[in-house]
């Protein structure tokens, strides 16, 4: 572990030096496993925030209420500690480096993390693929990856759902069909669409995209965190 830094009031960025890292594709994740002295283990998956070209591996971990693993990673872990990782994992929700056509990214909360890797990859490869990002967060303070986003050189739309700072002129509501129609690439352009966020967010966005006429086979989703009722 190289460093643990606060990314937002509830999320930390873990910067790791990984020996023998085989490399990853933008959008993949790792499994982190913690082991207590008596052998008890707990593991969770975290998206990789850094692009394949980075010399280190970044994870952004949001602290969940009562989160056994996220609590340790954000509150106990510090530079110099060792962390047991497995990965990279996942070959589906990844940046299609060779794919033709534009890409639309739609993130809810910490769902933006795999997109930070994709945007870094986009920039590092000087890709000419058109990319747009629609990013929904609770407040300005909750925005993850503001440094990367500012340097990504792509069209980014932020919507704040709970609190906006004085003078905020951007969107301030949850993502809905109208917002998708106005602030994402049109279905006629057949973009590859990645949606990542809590379950209810992904359900709303994916259904909205279908109603706008996007091809379901062009929509890739990754859901996390929030648990739905039956």
């Amino acid at each position: 572990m190289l460093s643990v830094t606060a990314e937002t009031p509830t999320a930390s960025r873990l910067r790791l030096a990984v020996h023998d890292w085989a490399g990853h594709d933008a959008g993949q994740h790792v499994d982190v496993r913690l082991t207590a002295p008596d052998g008890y283990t707990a593991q969770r998956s975290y998206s990789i925030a850094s692009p394949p070209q980075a010399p280190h591996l970044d994870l952004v971990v949001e602290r969940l209420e009562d989160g056994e693993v996220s609590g340790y990673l954000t509150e106990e872990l510090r530079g110099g500690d060792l962390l047991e990782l497995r990965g990279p994992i996942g070959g589906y929700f990844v940046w299609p480096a060779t794919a033709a056509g534009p890409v639309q990214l739609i993130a809810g909360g910490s769902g933006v993390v795999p997109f930070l890797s994709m945007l870094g990859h986009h920039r590092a490869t000087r890709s000419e693929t058109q990319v747009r990002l629609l990013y929904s967060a609770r407040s300005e303070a909750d925005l993850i990856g503001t440094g990367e986003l500012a340097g990504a050189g792509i069209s980014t739309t932020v919507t704040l759902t709970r609190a906006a700072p004085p003078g905020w002129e951007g969107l301030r509501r949850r993502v809905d069909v109208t917002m998708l129609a106005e602030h994402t690439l049109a279905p006629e352009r057949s973009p590859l669409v990645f949606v990542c966020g809590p379950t209810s967010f992904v359900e709303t966005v994916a259904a909205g995209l279908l109603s706008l006429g996007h091809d379901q086979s062009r929509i890739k989703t990754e859901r996390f965190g929030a648990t739905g009722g039956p």
Partner: protein
Amino acid sequence: MGANDIDPNTGTTPRFVSRGFTGRARRARSARLPPGQYDVGTGFPVLSAGPTPNTHLSRWDFTVQGQVDQVRHYSWAEFRSLPREDVEVDIHCVTSWSKFDTRWEGVSVDTLLGDVESEAEYALAFSDGGYTTNLPLADLTGGRAWVVDTYDGAPLRPEHGGPARLLVPHLYFWKSAKWVRGLVLGEVEELGFWERFGYHRYGDPWRQQRYAGD
């Protein structure tokens, strides 16, 4: 620290202790919880690779095809008229949550296969939305798998696989294909969606068969 030197079968090689980690949130660990899993309690996470499909029941059917003496089709009405079973089981997702005592209702795969004559050893379940997953046929028969359309006494919600999903509780839950529309039987094992992306071809939670090579 190596990325690939964990022994998933024992979880103990090499012995590694995370400094300062006590597992403060652990409760009395149930013997019903496979290694590496946690009890999600009343939650019920949703995971899938694409949008939730929306198939009208008038267009829904369930098909048994492939290496069979004759293809079987069940319309929704025919499916609903088959003998039904109540199932109460624990389920285990590869993303490490488990959920105890889930209550389902549906039709045993034994019933759906009925009088099908086949030499097949494998099945590929296929779904609306293009999802597939592979299983040994023996894991779908003998009262170990169902096609369910009810959860906790109510129609299965779309995000959980409604109108009907496969339920194979003794394997990781990605094998319990949501929005299932049928089975293709065959002599050769054809890998399904996640299995082609590096997940284990069998997926036994008690042996932590999460990824290919485990």
